[in-house]
């Protein structure tokens, strides 16, 4: 029986088994390859997407558990926080190999929506589940601070 998924504002009907991890459906069925397969066991964060705005690891999220919730992938990340994060990532030239970066960005967007002016400790707690083999952590932290300043409401 087809399963309906709301992905980036559109309804997609997929015929995959209900216990298929969302990541596989996003990449292989829907062609949304911006979300990356890193470890497959929810350890690295490369597959992070938002479900109803909350970051989740799509490699460990069966599609029959999504229900009517809204899935947002890196391709559909929009809004002031997403724009500020993207601009900061480019300005800081954050990625090195880039493989983990879509997951990093999705977590960073969620962080700014939760804590608009995060401290270093906030960043560590929120981003601790996103690993980077190139160790771009310092640039990620700096870019998040840049994006936070850019989205700050002028007083």
């Amino acid at each position, binding site marked *: 029986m087809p399963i309906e998924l709301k992905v980036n504002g559109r309804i997609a009907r997929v015929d995959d088994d209900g*216990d*298929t*991890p969302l990541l596989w459906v996003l990449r292989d069925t829907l062609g949304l390859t911006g979300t990356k397969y890193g470890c*497959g*066991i*929810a*350890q690295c*964060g490369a597959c992070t997407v938002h479900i109803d705005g*909350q*970051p*989740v*690891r799509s*490699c*460990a*999220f*069966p599609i029959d*558990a999504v229900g009517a919730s809204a899935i947002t992938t890196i391709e559909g990340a929009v809004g002031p926080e997403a724009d500020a994060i993207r601009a900061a990532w480019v300005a800081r030239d954050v990625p090195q190999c880039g493989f983990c970066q879509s997951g990093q960005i999705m*977590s960073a967007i*969620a*962080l700014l929506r*939760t*804590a608009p002016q995060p401290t270093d400790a906030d960043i560590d*707690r*929120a*981003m*601790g*589940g996103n*690993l980077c083999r190139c160790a771009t952590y310092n640039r990620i932290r700096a870019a998040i601070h840049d994006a936070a300043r850019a989205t700050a409401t002028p007083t």
Partner: protein
Amino acid sequence: MSARPRRRRRIGCLALLAIVVASQILTVALLLRPRTMPAPSVIPIVSAKVDRVSLRPVAAFQAIDDPAARSVALFREAGRVIQHPRCLNCHPRSDRPNQTDAMHPHLPAVMRGPDGGGEPVLRCATCHRDRNVDAAGVPGNPKWRLAPAEMTWERQSLGQICRQILDPARSHMSRDELRRHMAEDELVGWAWHPGGDRAPAPGTQAEFGALVAAWLETGARCPA
């Protein structure tokens, strides 16, 4: 008769170009030739073999005449569940859970957060669903979260744990609530169905619940 001068053989540029182009076409054709790919096949999920350990039934303690000694013995038997990694991992001594049978600090470094379910962005539910997800090897339950900080069990003696769970200020439970928590709570029950290669808690939840009930009925005495 004079000999005709021998002319050097010349190879035209066009011929060389033709050879180069032909070899390139041949290479591309070889690379792009249709090949039969392996047919996709279903990889069966092989359940890891885990050893189940039994609990002694309540009846096995009837031979202890002294009610206080019987009560302590019952709690010691229940303690084999209470101090099992399936339980201790989410009753940690810090704000960070442990994981695996080796009880090492949880990776990623998720923290307790305001409600025991993690920090706002890195929550338990970032990875854990309402059931075990075999495809990723990630355990889960609808109530997945840490026990309250007042209920630290890691590195506590069984006697300390006993006195803690009997103290409503720390356990937040009456004795009847405690009995039901141990015997019926679905997150506690996950300890016997942890999935993957995780060792389940000894016995069954029903047997554990019966031990706890018998311990409470015999005066809820604690080991030293």
